Every structure is written in structure tokens, then in C-alpha cells.
């Protein structure tokens, strides 16, 4: 158990004890006003003097003391001191000593029943004191519970609890009561009260830096020490413990001296503390001073503040009420940690005075309406119930009405500021713009709240963002916890925010359908006054106004935006339509205009190459054709790209044979791969469908681009194409090479238009850099994506792409062979062919392919045989295997070149599975005219044969 918990337990035990005592006292309350059992000596007395003596200032007709011979001016000392102030029972025996001059006698009288006398005022006194004790109990209990960690506050709690016990003896029935105990309790209580207050005033400021003003501390200390001294001496005076002589000489002067000092110091102390401080400290000190001081001064009792004889009851009522208010005020200040400034206290006081008057009127009417036959107890209860009920039911409207009256009559200045604010709110109707509106409202509120700073927050989910504000410490965004949110919705500042809002800030929330949408926080006022409830309400209402204005402003802006947007769209549509038409026709024209002459150049260079040419001329013509083809590729790229950019690239969807499509792309790449000695590896998973639905032309274009890039950038090693089935209808392709690879920066630049990974690449390898952009776009158009990865320069790279290609079935093919084999080719393009090939498999395959085109060829199994055949008869073309036994193809070609003139010599096409680089050059150097790689591709073969000019002048044998 921690120290705090121990203290809490201790103090709460005390609270329970006090509460039990009070509960015990409650049934005895009727004693105070039930005439049947209430007794009286029917006399009035002056204040207590030295030796407890009081002068008789009035004697009633029925006073038992009159009958005992007492006269006005006699000094009276009760045997039991408490008989002087407690409530007496009827017929109770009271012992007392009367002194007149030197004459002193002891008498015993019986209190007379006194049904007429002061029943109501005494009841009021009793109730007021009882209420004060009850409040002290509650305040003490709450402080004990909440502030048990703070020593000064523990002491204060104990003080309040002791107050709650004292005076209960007034309710105890006569005869049972030991008045010495009563006096002891009273003395201890007084001691505790003042010593406790003094300790509190010394220790509490240490916990609160605001209080570290030396002047303030000093006057407070002096005030409470003086009181403590007085009350420490009081028991001696009251109990008459001093010898008679001493009492006369010392006690009386001391009594007056100390009371005078306490009183004289108390008032300036309060006044000084008010004037020496500023802002929050001033408010706080003034409030504590007012409350504690009021309780203390009242407790000084009638001996100091001599009440005019005959007004004792009035005095008692005032004293009880002041005690009540002082305790309640201190408790409120401590527990709520908030203070009310004096001006506002007065304002409230006047409001409640008006309210009180109204209630009094209600009470009188109620009383008039009540049957008078009831006994007093029931009468009082009924009276209380009816008035209380009315009070409860009408409290809020009545208070508001009272506030209006007070405001109008007593506080015209407050009304002026409120009207100024109202005018500013009205003027906001002409303010345009979200920010301008918020600023306008904030300015108005700042003027209303004596220049307080503020910040406006807008809430989205848990987080609130600051929109505007001049509250310097206000954070830019705040995350609202549930408790914070509920506090803000209630208009209270969460405790944790006080660091930046200041102690006396306030929050004005805007709530829509139980949801906090925005709020304004007003910082504390520069003069330290806190916001009065009516001000808080006005500010909150203004913020709601602000929110409404913001909403209508947002609607206005939205409407405006919508109109602007629609107008802009209309204009854009018109502009786009004309621009698009122009673009479309331009593109169509361009593609036609550019391609036509290019095809002319390429076609004619081909025709030129078919004519007899010298080696130099052939070289030039070949360069023209190759350059033309390269240029056409670039142009096609650019046109494709423009089409994609213009959104005019259409992707078709038709069933096609996936493997065939892949193969046709590979076929175009294979020669180059072979030339560079780069392996071309293909791996297609078994579950990849044979036929898919999609755009085979575009897929081939993408594959071709990636494969040709891969081959282009690979000097040695391999290029691997894999095809896999991905989830859904997607196909995954990847093209992996062991080429130059990519740097991370290169990867990021790769798919950007007009950019190659490295600028040096363009110089080394050529190309527009558009191919990959087009491929990526095409992959996207085909419902997929394209990515690239590389382990870095020199480590090769992998291009992956996906396309959406649902499996489908192909319409049955009428012919088994779909490739460009024309059985009538031999008729259109008759050729005499010699095949020089030693390998049986290759012989059979070549023969078969030629036969499919309608050709039959002669066969030679080595170079020597080939030469023999050629010398014996003329051939248009020799398909010459390079590697042959006896004499290889190269040697045979050299021999033929030596023996036969170029124009009579058959065209010699090399067929080789060679892995050597520069193979083609070797063949050409040896005198061969064309070059085919093995395995033989039929399209290449067709192309090669079409390149042979048949000699129509020579008869076919």
C-alpha cells in the first residue's frame, strides 16, 4: 500500500466516522424547532466576557430568571458553559451563577416551554449550520479522495472534516451532554482549523509556483498566525482556567488584543493580496483569501464583532451562511481547479438574488395556498417539497430570465460587447472564402474575449488538424482519444492540453450527428479572468454560426467549381475533337507517306541486288537495303508509339496458336543469335495452353523486341525465353539474357520514352529506345504488365511480362502445314538445285522441304561430288553444306569460283550449323552468295531461293 493510499484510507475512515455522527444528529434536528420539546430561559445576553461571564441584556416575561431575582445588567455564568449556546429542552434544570456588583449567588432554574419564540429563525440557523457542516464533510471527503498525495491538501481535508463534527453537540439532547467535552471539541477544532489553515498556506504554495510571491505569502502567514494565537488562547479564556486575578488583569486584554490584531490584519491581507498580484495568481489568491478568510472571520465569533443586542439571531444566520459559502467556495476552487473572478461572482450573486426573490414570491403563494391545519413538521416538509420541486422544474428558464434582467440592468457593458460580436457575426455574411471566414470570426471572438488567442481545428476521424489560429503553442494536429473527444464535445478543455491552451482556456465544439467535426479553442484571457458560463455559451454559439457559414461557403465554392469545371470540360472537348481529327489524319498520312518511299527504296535495292553487279556495287546496294530496313524499323517504332500515345493502338482478340506465334518470333531472331554464337533457349511449361485468345501480331512484336534486344546486348552466353501459365487467364513470359545487364538507374530509365538505359548504349548498339516503351504499352494493352530486373551491369537482365490470354480452341486447320510453303512455288519460280550434304538426316530434311515447294534436287555427298555435278550440268543454285568429308563446302566453292566465271556460276547458298563467329564472312569470302543456318527454316529457305534468279534462258534438264 502506497503512502497515498494509506492517507486516503485514513482520511476516508474519518469521513465515514463524521458521516455516521451527522447521521446520528439528523433525527435530533426537530429539537431545534419543535415547540413541544424546546425549552428557553427567555432572555438575551451580551457577548462573552472574561471568565465566561455574559451580561443580561433582556429578560422575557416568562423568564425563570426574573422569578429568581435576576435583573438587566447582571453578569451570568453557566455552570455548564455549553448551556450558553446549546439548544435547551423544556423543563430542563440549568445551574448558573449571577453576579451583581460584589454580590454573587448560585441558582438553579428550569427552562420554560417556549412555543412562540423565534421558531422559524432558529430553525434557519440550525439548518444553515448543519448544511455548512455537511458541505465541510463533502469537501473534506472529496479532497481526501482526490488529493491524498499532497500533504497540505491532506491537512486541509482534515480541517474540513473537523469542521463537520464541531457544533453537532448543538443537536444533542439535554442531560446526556458533558459540556467539558463539548468545549474540548470546540477548542481542538478551532486549533485544528487555524493551525491547519496556516500549514496549508505555508505548504501549498510550494506545490504551486504561482504562489511564490513573497509579499502574498507574508500577509497570508501573518493573518493565519494571528488567528491561530487567538484561538489557542481561547480555551483558557472560555474555561476560566486562569485564577480570578490573572483573568482580570491578563485574559481580558489579551482577548481583545488578539482579536483586534487578527481582524485588523485579515482585511488588509486580503486587500493586499488582491493588489499585489496579477492575472491567474490574483484570481486564485483572491478566491482562497475570500473563502478561507470568511470562514476564519466568522469563527472569531461575537466576542470580537459585537453584534447589536437583539440581533443575535440575524448574526447567527449571517455567520452560518458565510461559513457555508466559504467552505463551499474553497472546495470548489480546489476540486475544480478553477476560479471565478469577483466581478462574475457578484454577477452570479445578483442573478441568484433575482432568482431568490422570484422563489420567495412562489413560496409565499404556496404557503398561502397550504392548509393551515397541518402540524409544523409536516407543514415544513410540504412547504420544502413544493418549493424545491418548483425550483428544480423551473431552474434553468428562471435562471436565464434572471440573467437577462441582471445583464440589462446592471451590466450594460457586457451587453455592448455581446452586441458587437453579434454585429460581426451578421457581417460574416459578406465574407468570401473559407480562410477569410475563419479569420473574421476569430477576430470578432478575440475582441469579445479581451484579446484572447484562439485556434480552429478541423476533425477527420481521430485526428484534428489546425486550420487557423494565433495561439502560438497550439499543435498543428491533435489525435483525440475517446476521453478527450467527450471532453471537447462537452465544451471542456482536456487536462493534458492545458500546457498549451493555458489554465483558463475554453473549447467550443461543432457536433454533427454526435460526431465532432471541428472545434475552436480560445486561449486564456490576458487578464487571467476565466470565461463566465454566459460568455462560454455565446462563444460556443458563435462557433456554431462559423461552422454554418463555412458549410454554405463550401457549397458555394463547390457550385462555382462545378460550373467552372463543366465550362472547362466543354471547351476542352471542343478543342480535343478538332485536335484529335487533325492528329488522326496526320498519323494516317504520315504512316502512308513515309512507308511508301521506304518500301520503294528497299524494294528497288532488292531488285538491284538481283542484277549482275560488281562486288563494290553489290556492297553499296546491300548497304542501301540494310539501312532502308533499319530506317523502316525505326519509323514503324515511331508510328506505333504515336499511335499508342494517341490512344489509337487497338489490340485485337482472336484465337491463335501460341507456340506457333512464339516460334515465328524466334525464327526471325535465330540467325542473328547464331551469328553471335548466342544460344537461344526456349522453355514452355506443359500447362501453357496451345491455343489462346489474343492479338498474335502484337504478342510477336513484343517477343521480337525483347528477344532482339536480348541478343543485341549479349556478346556470349544465352538468351532464354520461358513461358508459364499464371493465375487466371494470364500468361507469364520472361526473356533472360546473359548480356551487358543494367544498373539500378538504368532499370528506372528503361521504360521511359526516348531513353535507353545508358546514353553510351545508343552509340554502341544503336536503336531509338522506343522499342521497350512500345512493348510495355502493348503488354499493358493486352491486359498485363512488364517489368525488368538485373543483378547489375555485366550480370545480364530479365524482362518479364504478363498478358491476359484465355485458353481457347483453334478452328481445325485444313492443311497440316501452315507455314509459308507454296507447293506451286517451283512452277512460278523454277530452279535447278543441287544439294551438297553428307549427313543423311539433313539430306532427307532438305529434300523434303524442297519437295514441298515442288522442287526436286540433285544430291552430292561431298565437295568433290558437288564440283563434278556442277561441271557436268548447270544449276541455278547449290545448297552447300560447309562441313563435309573429302572436300568441305568452302573448299569446293573456292574451286568453283576459280573454274567458272561469276555470271555463269550457280548461286551458292551456304548451309551451316557452325558455331564459329564470323562464319558468314568466311562463307562470303570463299565466294558463297548466301548463307542459311541449320536447322533449316522453311521460310529462310524460301527467301533464299526467291533470291535466286532462275536462268530462264537455260533449258531445265
Amino acid at each position, binding site marked *: 500500500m502506497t503512502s497515498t493510499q494509506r492517507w486516503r484510507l485514513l482520511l476516508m475512515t474519518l469521513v465515514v466516522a463524521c458521516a455516521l455522527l451527522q447521521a446520528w444528529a439528523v433525527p435530533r434536528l426537530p429539537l431545534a424547532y419543535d415547540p413541544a420539546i424546546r425549552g428557553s430561559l427567555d432572555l438575551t445576553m451580551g457577548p462573552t466576557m472574561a471568565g465566561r461571564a455574559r451580561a443580561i441584556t433582556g429578560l422575557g416575561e416568562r423568564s425563570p430568571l426574573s422569578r429568581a431575582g435576576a435583573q438587566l445588567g447582571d453578569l451570568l455564568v453557566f455552570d455548564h458553559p455549553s448551556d450558553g449556546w446549546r439548544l435547551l429542552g423544556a423543563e430542563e434544570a440549568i445551574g448558573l451563577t449571577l453576579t451583581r456588583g460584589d454580590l454573587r449567588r448560585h441558582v438553579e432554574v428550569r427552562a420554560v416551554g417556549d412555543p412562540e419564540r423565534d421558531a422559524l429563525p432558529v430553525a434557519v440557523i440550525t439548518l444553515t449550520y448543519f448544511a455548512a457542516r455537511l458541505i465541510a464533510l463533502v469537501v473534506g471527503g472529496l479532497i481526501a479522495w482526490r488529493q491524498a498525495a499532497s500533504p497540505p491538501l491532506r491537512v486541509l481535508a482534515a480541517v474540513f472534516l473537523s469542521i463537520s463534527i464541531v457544533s453537532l453537540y448543538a443537536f444533542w439532547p439535554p442531560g446526556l451532554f458533558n459540556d467539558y467535552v463539548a468545549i474540548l471539541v470546540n477548542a481542538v477544532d478551532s486549533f485544528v482549523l487555524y493551525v491547519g489553515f496556516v500549514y496549508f498556506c505555508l505548504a501549498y504554495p510550494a506545490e504551486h509556483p504561482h504562489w511564490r510571491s513573497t509579499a502574498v505569502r507574508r500577509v497570508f502567514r501573518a493573518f493565519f498566525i494571528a488567528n491561530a494565537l487567538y484561538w489557542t488562547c481561547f480555551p483558557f479564556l472560555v474555561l476560566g482556567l486562569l485564577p480570578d486575578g490573572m483573568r482580570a488583569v491578563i485574559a481580558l486584554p489579551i482577548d481583545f488584543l488578539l482579536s483586534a490584531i487578527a481582524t485588523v490584519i485579515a482585511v488588509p491581507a486580503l486587500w493586499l493580496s488582491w493588489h499585489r498580484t496579477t492575472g491567474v495568481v490574483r484570481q486564485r489568491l483572491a478566491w482562497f483569501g475570500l473563502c478561507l478568510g470568511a470562514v476564519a472571520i466568522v469563527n472569531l465569533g461575537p466576542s470580537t464583532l459585537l453584534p447589536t443586542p437583539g440581533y443575535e439571531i440575524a448574526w447567527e444566520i449571517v455567520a452560518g451562511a458565510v461559513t457555508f459559502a466559504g467552505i463551499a467556495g474553497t472546495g470548489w476552487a480546489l476540486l475544480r481547479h478553477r476560479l471565478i473572478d469577483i466581478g462574475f461572482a457578484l454577477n452570479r450573486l445578483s442573478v441568484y438574488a433575482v432568482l431568490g426573490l422570484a422563489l420567495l414570491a412562489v413560496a409565499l403563494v404556496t404557503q398561502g395556498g397550504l392548509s393551515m391545519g397541518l402540524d409544523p413538521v409536516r407543514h415544513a416538509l410540504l412547504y420544502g417539497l413544493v418549493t424545491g420541486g418548483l425550483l428544480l422544474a423551473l431552474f434553468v428558464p428562471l435562471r436565464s430570465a434572471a440573467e437577462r434582467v441582471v445583464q440589462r440592468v446592471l451590466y450594460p457593458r457586457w451587453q455592448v460587447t455581446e452586441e458587437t460580436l453579434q454585429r460581426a457575426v451578421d457581417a460574416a455574411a459578406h465574407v468570401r472564402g473559407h480562410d477569410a471566414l475563419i479569420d473574421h470570426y476569430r477576430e470578432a471572438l478575440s475582441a469579445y474575449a479581451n484579446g484572447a488567442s484562439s485556434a480552429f481545428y478541423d476533425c477527420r476521424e481521430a485526428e484534428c488538424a489546425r486550420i487557423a489560429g494565433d495561439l502560438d503553442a497550439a499543435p498543428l494536429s491533435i489525435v483525440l482519444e475517446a476521453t478527450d473527444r467527450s471532453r471537447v464535445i462537452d465544451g471542456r478543455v482536456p487536462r493534458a492540453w492545458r500546457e498549451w491552451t493555458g489554465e483558463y482556456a475554453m473549447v467550443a465544439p461543432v457536433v454533427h450527428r454526435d460526431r465532432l467535426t471541428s472545434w475552436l479553442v480560445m486561449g486564456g484571457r490576458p487578464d487571467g479572468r476565466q470565461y463566465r458560463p454566459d460568455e462560454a455559451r455565446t462563444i460556443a454559439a458563435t462557433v456554431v454560426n462559423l461552422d454554418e457559414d463555412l458549410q454554405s461557403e463550401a457549397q458555394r465554392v463547390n457550385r462555382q467549381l462545378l460550373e467552372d469545371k463543366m465550362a472547362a470540360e466543354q471547351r476542352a472537348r471542343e478543342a480535343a475533337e478538332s485536335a484529335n481529327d487533325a492528329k488522326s489524319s496526320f498519323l494516317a498520312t504520315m504512316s502512308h507517306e513515309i512507308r511508301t518511299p521506304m518500301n520503294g527504296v528497299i524494294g528497288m535495292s532488292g531488285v538491284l541486288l538481283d542484277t549482275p553487279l560488281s562486288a563494290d556495287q553489290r556492297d553499296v546496294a546491300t548497304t542501301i537495303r540494310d539501312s532502308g530496313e533499319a530506317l523502316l524499323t525505326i519509323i514503324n517504332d515511331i508510328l506505333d508509339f504515336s499511335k499508342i500515345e494517341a490512344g489509337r493502338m487497338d489490340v485485337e482478340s482472336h484465337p491463335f496458336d501460341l*507456340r*506457333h506465334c*512464339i*516460334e515465328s518470333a*524466334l*525464327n526471325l531472331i535465330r540467325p542473328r543469335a547464331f551469328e553471335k554464337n548466342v*544460344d537461344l*533457349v*526456349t*522453355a*514452355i511449361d506443359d500447362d501453357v495452353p496451345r491455343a489462346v485468345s489474343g492479338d498474335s501480331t502484337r504478342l510477336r512484336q513484343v517477343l521480337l523486341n525483347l528477344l532482339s534486344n536480348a541478343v543485341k546486348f549479349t556478346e556470349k552466353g544465352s538468351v*532464354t525465353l*520461358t513461358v508459364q501459365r499464371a493465375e487466371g487467364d494470364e500468361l507469364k513470359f520472361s526473356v533472360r539474357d546473359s548480356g551487358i545487364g543494367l544498373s539500378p538507374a538504368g532499370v528506372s530509365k528503361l521504360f521511359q520514352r526516348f531513353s535507353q538505359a545508358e546514353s553510351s548504349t545508343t552509340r554502341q548498339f544503336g536503336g531509338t529506345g522506343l522499342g521497350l516503351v512500345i512493348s510495355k504499352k502493348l503488354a499493358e494493352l493486352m491486359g498485363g504488365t512488364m517489368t525488368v530486373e538485373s543483378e547489375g551491369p555485366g550480370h545480364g537482365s530479365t524482362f518479364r511480362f504478363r498478358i491476359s490470354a484465355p485458353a481457347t480452341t483453334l478452328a481445325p486447320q485444313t492443311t*497440316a*502445314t*501452315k*507455314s509459308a*510453303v507454296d507447293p506451286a512455288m517451283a512452277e512460278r519460280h523454277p530452279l535447278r538445285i543441287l544439294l551438297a550434304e*553428307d*549427313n*543423311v*538426316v*539433313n539430306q*532427307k*530434311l532438305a529434300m*523434303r*522441304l524442297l519437295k*514441298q515447294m515442288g522442287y526436286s534436287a540433285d544430291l552430292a555427298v561431298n565437295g568433290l561430288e558437288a564440283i563434278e555435278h556442277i561441271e557436268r550440268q548447270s544449276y541455278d543454285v547449290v545448297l552447300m553444306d560447309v*562441313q563435309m*568429308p573429302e572436300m568441305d563446302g568452302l573448299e569446293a566453292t573456292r574451286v568453283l569460283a576459280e573454274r567458272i566465271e561469276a555470271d555463269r556460276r550457280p548461286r551458292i547458298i551456304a548451309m551451316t*550449323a*557452325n*558455331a564459329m563467329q564470323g562464319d558468314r564472312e568466311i562463307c562470303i569470302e570463299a565466294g558463297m552468295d548466301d548463307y542459311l543456318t*541449320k*536447322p*533449316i*527454316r*522453311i521460310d529462310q529457305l524460301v527467301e533464299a531461293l526467291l533470291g535466286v534468279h532462275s536462268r530462264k534462258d537455260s533449258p531445265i534438264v
Partner: protein
Amino acid sequence: LSEPTIDPITFAGLGEMAGPEFVTELVDTFLDEAPRMLSALREAYAQHAVERFRREAHSLKSNSNTFGALTLGHSARDIELQGLDATKPEALDALDAEFARAAAALKALCNG
């Protein structure tokens, strides 16, 4: 990536190009011829006939690639390129084994 014994695209391409029946015939020819080539290769190796050795390897490579027997083709190419002197007898054994695999695969493809 495990390379298939027979590259399906190449094989399918061959079928499309020359007709499936013919391919079966061609495969038979190859399966007849290849053992002869392999033994010729060993013979050349034994006799240290450098040029013949290279040529036989070349032929085997060429035929293998025709049918898409890429691994066999690679092995043959390696032997062709490194020449007789650098070739170890184990390489020839491996070549035999690879041929057996390719032959089985080709038969399966033709019958399937």
C-alpha cells in the same frame, strides 16, 4: 531452369514445316544414323583423327539441333569446339548417355 530434353517449339516447328509423318521418318533415320556417328566419333578419338572427330561432332550437333535435342546439341558443340585434344573420354560417355535420353524422348514424341 531445367532444359527439356527436346525443345517442344523446335520439334513442333519441324513437324509443321515438314509434316508429322515425315518427322517420324526423319527421327528413325536419325536414330539409325546417330549410333554410327557416335561410334565414328569414338573411332576418330581412338585413332586421334582430329579433323574427322570434329566433323562427326559437328554432324551430331547439327542433327540434334534439327530435332530440338538441345542438350545433346550443346554437348556435341562443346566437343566440336574444344577439339579432340581437350576432350576427355568421360565427355564421350556423357554424350552417349545424353543421346540415349534424347532418343527415348524422340521416340516418345513420335509415338505420342
